[in-house]
């Protein structure tokens, strides 16, 4: 599958949005509220947030919403009537970064692991990713340390790279990307001069992944290390919730005498209750154990069992952490430890 290269003019964006919507696509794009950005359904490209290096919230909500009804039911006399869930609308996620595009594969690995999660899959197969590569990076970014990059095409259906002129170099990567182009073919014009690299941010590799992965199992039983790293951790769920690759969830049943709903809600392994057993025993009763779990499952257990890293180096967790934990620093400490 060769990648086609086209040019998408910056001022074509409003028409692109309009045409995609006219052809039935729901568009999720970065939108700013109270200075924080998340992916919301937008009706025009004018509402897209400007000047974001990376959004606060990840686009995982496109396929793994924060609060999702798995099923609803009502009681009719003695009968239980299940409600039909409408088919998910075909969706285009616009403006996500290459790291985010790569994270969808991580979500998919988990949701395909023991059985294919129907709800997730039904959304994933209707979701196209129209990413924008990174012209800037900050100190929190470490995509290149985990196999990604500011212009990486993995996971994207179309990757746009903004050139000096303001127009985009558009890489049409997958069949789904080609389908999207067909919805507005006149907007994708002849390819500009090659050389996307010069428009991309420089993201130096910050630690040796291989070294990290070799060291991790060896430091499992180093309680002092984990204690030192996690002393300032407050035990909230902010990191897991903004992470594009975090996929833990809680099931909540809410019902009354008329009927009810089963909800799937985001959960975090950082919460003290996460592993509380019904017996009262908690295998991860200490924050240091929970921090160790967070790091190990993303960098050790996921690669072992799902053949994918559980982190794409987007840096969101570190940017919003109220305690300034900074995952990257901790990873470097372990990778560089003798």
């Amino acid at each position: 599958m060769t990648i086609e290269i086209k040019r998408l003019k910056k001022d074509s964006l409003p028409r692109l949005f309009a045409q995609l919507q006219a052809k039935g696509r729901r568009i999720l794009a970065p939108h700013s509220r109270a200075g924080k950005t998340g992916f919301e359904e937008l009706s025009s490209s004018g509402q897209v947030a400007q000047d974001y290096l990376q959004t606060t919230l990840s686009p995982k909500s496109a396929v793994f919403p924060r609060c999702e009804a798995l099923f609803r039911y009502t009681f009719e006399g003695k009968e239980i009537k299940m409600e039909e869930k409408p088919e998910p609308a075909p969706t285009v996620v616009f403006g996500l970064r290459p790291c985010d595009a790569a994270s969808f594969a991580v979500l998919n690995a988990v949701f395909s692991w023991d059985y294919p999660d129907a709800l997730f899959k039904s959304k994933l197969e209707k979701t196209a990713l129209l990413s924008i590569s990174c012209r800037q990076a900050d100190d929190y970014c470490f995509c290149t340390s985990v196999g990604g990059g500011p212009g990486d095409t993995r996971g994207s259906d179309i990757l746009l790279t903004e050139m000096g002129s303001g127009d985009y170099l558009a890489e049409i990567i997958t069949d789904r990307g080609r389908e999207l182009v067909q919805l507005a073919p006149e907007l994708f014009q002849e390819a500009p001069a090659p050389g996307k690299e010069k428009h991309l941010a420089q993201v130096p590799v910050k630690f040796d992944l291989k070294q990290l992965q070799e060291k991790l199992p060896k430091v499992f039983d180093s309680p002092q290390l984990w204690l030192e790293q996690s002393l300032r951790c407050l035990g909230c769920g902010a990191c897991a919730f903004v992470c594009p690759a975090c996929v833990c969830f809680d099931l909540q049943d809410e019902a009354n005498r008329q009927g009810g709903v089963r909800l799937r809600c985001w959960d975090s392994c950082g919460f003290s209750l996460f592993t509380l057993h019904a017996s009262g025993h908690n295998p991860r009763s200490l924050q240091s154990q929970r921090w160790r779990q967070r790091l190990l499952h993303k960098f050790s257990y996921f690669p072992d069992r799902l053949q994918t890293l559980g982190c794409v180096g987007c840096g969101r967790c570190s940017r919003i952490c109220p305690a300034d934990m900074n995952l990257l620093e901790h990873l470097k400490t372990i990778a560089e430890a003798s």
Partner: protein
Amino acid sequence: MAEFQPKIVAFVCNWCTYAGADLAGTSRIKYASNVRIIRLPCTGRIDFMLLLKALDQGADGVIVSGCHPNDCHYTAGNFHARRRWIVFRSLLDFLGLDTRRVHFAWVSAAEGAKWAQLVNSVTEEVQRLGPYHDYQKLAGAGVE
């Protein structure tokens, strides 16, 4: 046109208001039938969530009632309740909830007539205000 019949939930203490409501009944006082009474040992036991859950589950209005100050069967339960309501009510107001739909009262065991009058006036007011759509619209909002 069928008149809107509000659903009013009343959280009342066992010793005073509940007995007062009972007195209204035994005195054969006719009053609005829109109220559903939930009996608690004391207003001091009333949790904020009880009121919110009532609204959650479709109540258009809420009454909270207990013994007059100094008459609490448990001596001070209603004093604690009074303090809580002072803060809770101002917080509800601050967050934009309709405090015209949440009524607090002291109704003693001898005040059957007062109970009836209270229910009538609250029912009338909530009827005028209409169903509490704002709170009910919350159900299901934010769920994909």
